[in-house]
């Protein structure tokens, strides 16, 4: 693998894959989910970020989510949640959403009940339009960018705000 120390791109830099910004800003790339809303009330997303002490133990991250569902923006999502795990006893402190500018979004952030790749994962749910219309979610987190490829992403629908994973 080449290790480029410095370069200048005088035109455009096009990246068809993903770009990791590294420890400088420690933000992950955006991950996009394209879906069609169902009649179920909530869409649930399981992220690759472990919800235990392996990354989040006394080392908080910000989970950032943008998105919408419906041709006319029936539901619009724009929130940041602060994720943290007690480094001593693995207690989950990840459900705070201090920044929520969405529209009928009703976000909930939770730790998966099950394990995936041996670890519980950070999950969240937001409202769907329940009309079968297109939707997108754009997700990234700040700090702990190294967990970006730690496990596969997944999404599903459920009537409740937690417990889908």
């Amino acid at each position, binding site marked *: 693998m080449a290790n480029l120390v*410095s*370069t200048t791109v005088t035109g455009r830099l096009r990246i068809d894959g993903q*770009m*990791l910004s590294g420890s*400088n800003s420690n933000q992950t790339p955006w991950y996009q989910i394209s879906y069609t809303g169902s009649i179920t009330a909530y869409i649930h997303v399981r992220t690759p970020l472990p919800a235990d002490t392996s990354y989040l133990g*006394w080392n*908080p991250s*910000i989970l950032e989510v943008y998105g919408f569902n419906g041709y006319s923006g029936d539901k619009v999502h724009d929130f940041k949640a*602060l994720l943290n795990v007690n480094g001593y006893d693995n207690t989950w402190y990840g459900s705070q959403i201090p*920044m929520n500018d969405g529209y009928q979004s009703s976000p909930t952030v939770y730790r998966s009940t099950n394990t995936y790749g041996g670890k519980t994962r950070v999950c969240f749910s937001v409202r769907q339009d329940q009309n079968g219309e297109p939707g997108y979610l754009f997700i990234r987190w700040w700090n702990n960018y190294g967990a970006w490829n730690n496990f596969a992403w997944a999404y599903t629908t459920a009537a409740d705000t937690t417990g889908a994973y």
Partner: protein
Amino acid sequence: MATLQSIALGGNALNVTGGIHQQGGGCSPWARFYHCGDCPNTTDCNPTYSGGYLHYRTPIPCEGYSAIRNVPLMLEIVGFHTYSGEYTWDFKSIINIDGSDNLETNVRVNAGSYGLSYEPYFYKSTNTYGGYKRLCVSLQKVGCCCVGWMWFRWWGSSTATGLWNNYSWGQQGAANRLNTFPYF
């Protein structure tokens, strides 16, 4: 320095360890800082963890630097203080240095900052750094040494984004919201 004409990564991620400066987009890279929030000594805060503010010195010159006079920029601040986010910040502020080197600031977007009694307070440093007074800002925090991270970037003309490496950043905990000590 190499000028890259083309690169194909075959679907692999592009890892950038030093930050990305998209000059053409008019936005600086993010600057990211960890803090516990202690004052540097007991002169201002005793005990040192008891200060209720964080002060940051940015690289932006705001006196005696004609290139940025009346070239406003938008400074974006995102971050949190304490494990449970007792204070969080998500602001965009318009910053201008007028033709007489007066600092003019307005916080116009608050995306949902939490716990704060005061908006960010912007000021010109009292001291000079690299020959210029610099744009500084104070942010409210809990009077403790508690984990937190801050991110800063600014949007504006290529002149403003080109100031990214004009001087080093500075950070310290403080007892006062204003630069009365002075801190910078």
